[in-house]
């Protein structure tokens, strides 16, 4: 498949991502061995491809659930003022929760989710993100399982989009500067 013109270069190719996802799954499987109330919560839309691949490599029993968020305004989301437009199907009280994100940027959204889920009294609460941009962080959030740290460039593919484009590319690529400038 030819790389779209709006993309600058591939940052993480399919094999690199797949190998890292397998390692994360092995680590999670080891850490949660013997626990049968693990629930992975995928944050839509961005995390669905990562979650699908991660779950397939887990050897521990678990459930998957999804939440969907929306911002009140575009500027509000950067401060973490997000609206939960779909909550989990099942209660997470007394269950071991692992939030699965595509990317942690400022950290505001994940910080909001952690506070929101902690209030539900889960047995434990941890986080897994494929990507993290530490340079962008504005609030300190704990990341328990991290795929890759990347620099502050706009990335797309493997669940991440630019205005809903490029989300389903099997690799992660940097967008050309002029495409979003």
């Amino acid at each position, binding site marked *: 498949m030819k790389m779209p013109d709006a993309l600058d270069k591939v940052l993480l190719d399919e094999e690199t991502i797949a190998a890292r996802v397998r390692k994360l799954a092995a680590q999670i499987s080891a850490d949660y061995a013997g626990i049968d109330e693990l629930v992975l919560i995928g944050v839509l839309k961005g995390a*669905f491809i990562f979650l*699908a691949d991660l779950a397939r490599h887990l050897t521990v029993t678990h459930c998957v659930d999804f939440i969907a968020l929306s911002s009140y305004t575009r500027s509000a989301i950067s401060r973490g003022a997000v609206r939960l437009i779909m909550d989990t199907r099942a209660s997470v009280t007394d269950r071991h929760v692992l939030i699965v994100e595509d990317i942690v940027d400022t950290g505001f959204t994940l910080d909001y989710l952690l506070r929101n889920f902690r209030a539900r009294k889960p047995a434990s609460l941890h986080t897994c993100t494929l990507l993290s941009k530490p340079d962008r962080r504005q609030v300190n959030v704990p990341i328990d399982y991290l795929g890759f740290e990347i620099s502050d460039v706009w990335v797309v593919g493997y669940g991440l989009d630019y205005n809903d484009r490029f989300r389903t590319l099997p690799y992660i690529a940097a967008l050309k500067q002029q495409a979003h400038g």
Partner: protein
Amino acid sequence: MGLRDDFAKILISEPEVQARVAELGEEINATYAPDDRPLLVCVLKGAFMFLADLVRHLDMRHEVDFMEISSYGRGTVSSGVVRILLDLAQNIDGRHVLIVEDIIDSGRTLDYITRNLQTRGPASLRVCTLLSKPSRREIDIPLDFVGFEIPDEFVAGYGLDFAEEYRNLPFIGVLKEQIYGDID
């Protein structure tokens, strides 16, 4: 993995699933014109794994969106009417829409979803399902892309669950009767 022991047999192996998903991707690529920009509508939770693999085989511009639905309860099953827990983020007026499902059984839910989406004025509305159980069909509904036709057996894996388990297995298997038999 212990979960595998809960299966009486493997119906569709992981390589068979993957090969067919790639073929479906090609069929979809060949169906849409380059500027159709179809919106793939994934019905959660069952179809998420299928969707995640399918979209990686598409080479034309497209977008994805999600719907989550829930039944109102036993009394409403025959009408197919379901509660929409999460509606589409996008307006589909004038858009080419492709519904992506894990399995079509009676067809009643799909029939309701297509009628619901049809009222929103899409340019086209097609259906892609990984599995179909034709012997269970109660409503004749056209399926544009079908992964596998399967017999009326209790299947799980590759997104399909039983009591929230087995979704993450990479193959599709028939559960042993003692697994599902004593729960109603």
